[in-house]
């Protein structure tokens, strides 16, 4: 059932919250925190992998200049 079924009822009752699924906020929050912490883990791992690849090849300080594109 939607939170708002009649805007007239909202105005007459002074109802504040109009978003869907009022009362489930804590579950959305837990999901968002899991996504946030997961982002850090994934980013840290992928950054380490990228660094290891560069370290294995050990390019010189000017090698990037041969990779400058013309487009």
């Amino acid at each position, binding site marked *: 059932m939607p939170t708002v079924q009649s805007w007239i009822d909202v105005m007459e009752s002074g109802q504040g919250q109009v978003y869907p699924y009022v009362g489930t906020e804590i579950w959305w929050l837990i999901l*968002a925190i899991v996504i946030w912490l997961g982002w850090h883990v994934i980013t840290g791992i992928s950054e380490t992998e990228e660094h290891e690849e560069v370290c294995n090849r050990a390019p010189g300080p000017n090698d*990037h200049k041969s990779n400058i594109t013309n487009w």
Partner: protein
Amino acid sequence: MDNELSALVTIFTEFYYWITVVLMFLIHVGFCMYEVGVSRYKNHQHTLMKNTMLIPLVTITWFFFGWWIYWAFINGPGLGTSIISGESGMNLVADGWGANELGNPTGPAMAINMGDHISGVFWAAFLLFSWTAASIVSGAVIERIRISAFGVLAIAIGSVFWTIDASWGWHFDGWMVKVLGYHDAYASGVIHAVCGGFALGVLVVLGPRIGKFVNGEPQNIGPRNPWLVTLGLFLIYTGFWGFYAACNIPIFDAGADAGAGVTFFTATNIYVTPTTLSGITMNFLMSLAGGLLAGYVVSKGDPFWTYSSGLAGIICASAGNDLYHPLQAMIIAMVGVVIMYKLHYWVERRFKIDDAVGAVAVHGYAGVVGLLICGFVLWGYPSSMYDGYAAITPWGMLAGAIIMFGVLGFLPGYVIALILNSAGQLRIPREVEIAGQDYLAMEAAKKDEETVASAEQ
């Protein structure tokens, strides 16, 4: 909003803060341009992405707990007594202003609410301050910090430590305002000194870029693109106007709130004491002018430092720019710029600190100097219109400066960087720093170009 006048005031206030949020976004655009302009070609993409990703990281953590901290920690806890609740512990349920009600991410104030037009846009204005806090640190550490490490540091300064100092010293009910007479209308300390101190703490652990110091002598690693730096700083100035406006309450009956028995509608600063948007705009411009004039002289016309000094000038005068005369704002800005410029090079040479964009100087030193000067120039002024608050004094402002730069800035920055460093998660490997952080991305782009070119033949 049951009559036209109250509706007009409410909707005007909502729109006013909304405009400041949009204007303050330009600060972040400016910081991005500025950092890319300062970094070397082989680091552009990572430098940009580092500064960009602080936006979502600080935003979601500001929603999770940053805004809650601002409302919860006004008493320290244990360092002051709230004038609203009469409590000295955590402020959680006090008369509609408690953290549970305003900052709880599952509460009704933290969403679209037909009965509340202000909380969300006020949350957003503070969030933009938080981005700025993290972005100040971002510039200092370019070209050698891991993005994942910076993400942690950005959340620490953007959603925790600057928030605590704002709760303590940038809130009409904050304990530092009551006990110390701390006055910092446009955030010399609560944004700039704390972030400069935090950046310095990180830099001590992070160390300089390879080649910055040769045989102990500092070498200039100049901006790759000084014109991008210029545009970036102009955008930061522009966004700073929005910041100044956002620090005010646009329309408020201060007389009734103070129990003065008069009706006195005015704009107020964050402490709910009267000022005018008109006057602070004059002071903003005069302190900008003072900073530019002094910066041009001390740096011998160097564009990088001249533009940065304009910003430092505003930062230095900001603590008292709700009350200063415009000429005072100008001269205070000039004093602050000379001190921060000299201090930058002294610290660089003495302690081998590589602050790539001068963030510690422009924000940290100028902010601290601004607080100290404010203590003398506004000596004896009431810090609040409510009873029982200490007046502004030099020693109160000195204590405030130490808390901002040292206790909530340098110390946490140093400790968190130390933890990340001990886990091997702070600095990129030497090989990556030499090759450039964008090496693999540039190589992939070159391969794409060659493949497309061969297909076109």
